């Protein structure tokens, strides 16, 4: 669990880094980031490292960028391969908007993510969505570098990341 959290923090540093991370983690050797162990296929850790568990959005938008679609394609492939897991998609927003709208915007982002995964063949009945609006930021600095990390949809294997 600790190792997974370490990877999650690393991934949260931005989409570019996440892409780089995926490239590195594709190697089958045991050389690793942060001294952690290479992911065992089919585990949650494997999903987070090799597919990427989150996509990011522009301000006030739920549009999936080409990069997001890329990530979701990998998610869909993984989810179809390891099909026993139920999935919760969390939608989130940054703090630069009002509370009610951000709840709806988070839901819109989670729905867009869900719909894309379904279009890529993931069984719809496995996918649940929830929105946390702006209530669960992962980055709290007063800068676009943090706000952009919070405008996200997170695909959580088997349960809730943030509780």
């Amino acid at each position, binding site marked *: 669990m600790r190792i997974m959290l370490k990877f999650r923090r690393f991934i949260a540093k931005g989409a570019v880094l996440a892409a780089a991370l995926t490239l590195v983690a594709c190697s089958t050797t045991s050389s690793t980031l942060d001294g952690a162990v290479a992911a065992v296929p089919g585990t949650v850790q494997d999903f987070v490292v090799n597919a990427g568990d989150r996509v990011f959005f522009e301000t*006030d938008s*739920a549009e999936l960028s080409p990069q997001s679609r890329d990530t979701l394609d990998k998610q869909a492939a993984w989810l179809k391969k390891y099909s026993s897991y139920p999935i919760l998609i969390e939608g989130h927003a940054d*703090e*630069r*908007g*009002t*509370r*009610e*709208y951000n*709840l*709806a*915007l988070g*839901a*819109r982002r989670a*729905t*867009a993510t869900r719909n894309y995964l379904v279009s890529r063949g993931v069984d719809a009945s496995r996918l649940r969505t*929830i*929105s*946390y*609006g702006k*209530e*669960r*930021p*992962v*980055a*709290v*600095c*007063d800068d676009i570098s943090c706000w952009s990390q919070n405008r996200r949809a997170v695909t959580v294997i088997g349960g*809730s990341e943030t*509780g």
Partner: protein
Amino acid sequence: MARGKAGFATLTRIGRAFLVIAAIAVLAWPRPAHAVIEIDITQGNIQPLPVAIPDFIGGNPDDAQLGADIANVIQGNLVRSGLFAPIDKAAFIEKIRDVNATPRFGDWRIINAQALVTGHVALLKDGRLRAEFRLWDVLAGQQMAGQQFFTTPDNWRRVAHVVSDAIYQRLTGESGYFDTRIVFIDETGPKDARIKSLAIMDQDGANMRVLTDGGELVLTPRFSPTSQEITYMSFGRGDQPRVHLFNIETGQREIVGDFPGMTFAPRFSPDGQRVIMSLQSGGNANIYAMDLRSRATTRLTDTPAIDTAPSYSPDGRQVTFESDRGGTQQIYVMNADGTNQQRISFGEGIYSTPVWSPRGDLIAFTKRHAGRFLIGVLRPDGSGERILTEGYHNEGPTWAPNGRVIMFFRDTPGENGGPKLWSVDLTGYNERQIDTPHFASDPAWSPLIN
């Protein structure tokens, strides 16, 4: 000048238990033809009226302490209104010993008082608290108002608030807002692990208590206008987030309705009979109203957009809400049955959280433009937009019951920052931070309690 004999009205008991105040006497006094002192609260940045508020008289040390406490609360209310400047007690010349006697107005004029408040408290043998006050026009040398109250001793703060409202009303011609409460969200912990609880307090920050234990994410609480209930949104213990009702007296709570998705942004109708809210369906949010007795639900909007933050007009005939159906969040007004939906905001920026004033004349809102966060008002026809205040992540206005003061919340940046409650007058002046023990957000102002 001889003092007229006091006349007593019939005792009426209003409400039950801990919220009873029975005003039983309006003390008669020849009224002046016109008030010499008065305050025009529509003007910004006025000169505060100098007022003297000696401790209420008490016949023994306990009563005297209560008298000092009550005077203190009254003074705090009047100061925070921005309309009054209290005179330092150390400057007082006359010592008020009999609330029924005419003051030596010369002694008060000399220290520049224009208004004088005197009072008396007594804890009676039957266990009740009796309190009375007089408001004096120092310049005209006449009484302007007077009332007597009977209540339970633990209601002493409400006596001070009711007296404050009486003073405010007599001098401004507007009803006051001091005998009210604020429901809000108490926030603790770092910004990325916030603990939120429902909380309630008197409008001056006293009697603050937390209503939920922080174990569930709770948001946007609003008072019922007619009962001791709050409607709010909660994520439960990991369940689907839903609109709830919370009974302040019994602590009982229930989920509102049986909706197939997330419900949020709830408010009561002015008659307290309905809860209006948003229901999320996939990527869209639409507005629904539910009758609390019959449980019948009415769908009010039906667009592939986010429609949320609904707020009734005080006559219950219309609803204002925000919608991004036009591309960005803007303010709309519709009839309470959902017909005639019209956009009313057309300025530069993003408009949200519209709230109709209890006076019916204005709608307050949050506006975001070019990285700035503003609280403003506009008329229900969309004209007369006016910004009241700018600040970091300003959000979520709520109106005092007299429609003259707005409370909202404002954040501070960084991981150790957090929101606090603020108030500002409709004139844009007298901006103040509200005292809360922790971070606080999502305030909602109650109606006058009495």
